[in-house]
């Protein structure tokens, strides 16, 4: 049963709910205008008993018979929580073979510059304004730096990997052989947890691996 106009000729009849006589154009509907409005708003009419639930509205005004939302369990705490990050002041020393070491995807520059706004919309790059660079790193970032740092040594002014390069069939393509004078790259870089992005709290930060 619907509230759309009947296709046939109009004739006198009564509302199926409140029994009000429907005449003229109103007779094209099975309910009076009051009951149709009440149905749309989910209200019961004043005088009539609600019809059986085959076309009764739900509390929100919609028919939910045969309707079922699809939901999945979701642990809001796990994916929504961002990884914990802290600021780390990272850099290398003057005697490091390269003046911008990268370890574990983190740069350890000797210097960083700064783009200063001299006038609205006009900027000027000023070189070597800060020692090192402050990064906002997760614990995983820091762990990877520690892991990768010990895999590199400084030999004759070059940074080389201590990892052997081995093919899938086991053939060693390049083998690292320690030599006298090899020094860990960790003796040339520093990483200091600091309070904010502009924090560079000491003049001589200790290297990640202490020098002998």
């Amino acid at each position, binding site marked *: 049963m619907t509230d759309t106009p009947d296709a046939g000729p109009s004739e006198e009849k009564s509302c199926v709910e409140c029994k009000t006589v429907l005449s003229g154009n109103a007779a094209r509907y099975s309910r009076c205008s009051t009951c149709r409005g009440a149905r749309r708003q989910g209200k019961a009419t004043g005088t009539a008993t609600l019809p059986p639930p085959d076309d009764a509205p739900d509390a929100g005004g919609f028919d939910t018979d045969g309707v079922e939302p699809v939901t999945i369990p979701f642990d809001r705490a796990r994916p929504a929580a961002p990884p914990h990050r802290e600021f780390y002041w990272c850099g290398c020393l003057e005697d490091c073979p390269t003046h911008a070491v990268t370890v574990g995807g983190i*740069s350890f520059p000797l210097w960083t510059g700064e783009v200063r706004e001299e006038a609205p*919309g006009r900027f000027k790059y000023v070189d070597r304004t800060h020692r090192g660079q402050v990064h906002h790193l997760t614990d995983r970032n820091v762990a990877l730096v520690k892991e990768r740092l010990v895999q590199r040594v400084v030999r004759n002014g070059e940074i080389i*990997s201590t990892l052997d*390069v081995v093919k*899938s069939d086991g053939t060693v*393509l390049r083998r690292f052989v320690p030599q006298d004078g090899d020094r860990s790259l960790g003796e040339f870089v520093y990483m200091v947890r600091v309070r904010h992005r502009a924090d560079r709290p000491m003049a001589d930060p200790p290297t990640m691996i202490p020098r002998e």
Partner: protein
Amino acid sequence: MPQMVLTGGQGGTTRRGLRDAFANAYDSVVEQTKADLAPVMALDLPSDTDQEFYAYFKDAPFPRFHPAGENMAKAGFAAVQFSVINYDYSLEVEWRRNDEGDDQLRMLRPRAAQTGLNFVYRFTDAFFDVLLSTTSFLPATLTAPDGSAIFATTDGGGANRFGATNGNLLTGNGVASAATIRTDIFAAMAQFRLMQNTKGKPLFPPAILNQGFIVYAGAANEEILNEAFFQNPTSNIAPAAGAVAAQNIFAAAGKRVELQLHQQITDNDMYVFLRGTPYKPIFHQAREPLSEAYHDEITSAEHARAKLRSLMYTTRDGYGLWLPYGVVKINN
């Protein structure tokens, strides 16, 4: 008919030979060296003073919705200025006049040629100094005009460099297998697609991204890298039952990749250059071209007193690091 032996002073066949040796060495390799570097380094930018000032505009503003009856939004251009200093790069090759006369093997000529060869490699030396942040040739390490080193995850202000997480410095998975190398190279290719301009729009259009990539890596990893990049297509060889024929996945994916292996790269890091980038990350400005001066007992009292002869070479160049969005480092 008398022949021209030398210009600019007295001279003989030996001295003319030396001069020719230097000149030939330079001429024969300079064009090749430049050709090798051209896809990754801009060469011979003009310079006419001691320090060149450059400026780059941030991206032009993009259109915004204009409600009817209201004034249109206004936006201006912002520009960043930076500079590159020209320095002298010189070398004098000196030998004893007696040695030249006694040299029965004529070894001075190849030695002279080697000197000229070394001089032309200043482009290569400067390129690797900037790429690796070393100072074997340049007087100081260069930083990019956004404040950071050539490779960094953030710019000098702490924002994601070029609008992409990790900037132009990616964490690699090592070179233990060809598969991990390929994975990392594809990650670098994707990183170029993720970069944004200063207005948050894609930095590179597909036409540039499709022009291919050049991968610089250490010479010591030659075999494993070639295995990763240049597997022979074996589509004409029936694989074993259940197996998949090996193929070059880069070629299959339509990626044009050129591999450059160099001894200057001593670790397992890889550097992926975007061939079509409109501005190369590293550039050279030419203030004064290479010049030579020959001195001997005729032209120099000092040389005559010491019985020496020498050739002096000098040039005046500047080397700069532009915003390095055209290169991504894979840090292994």
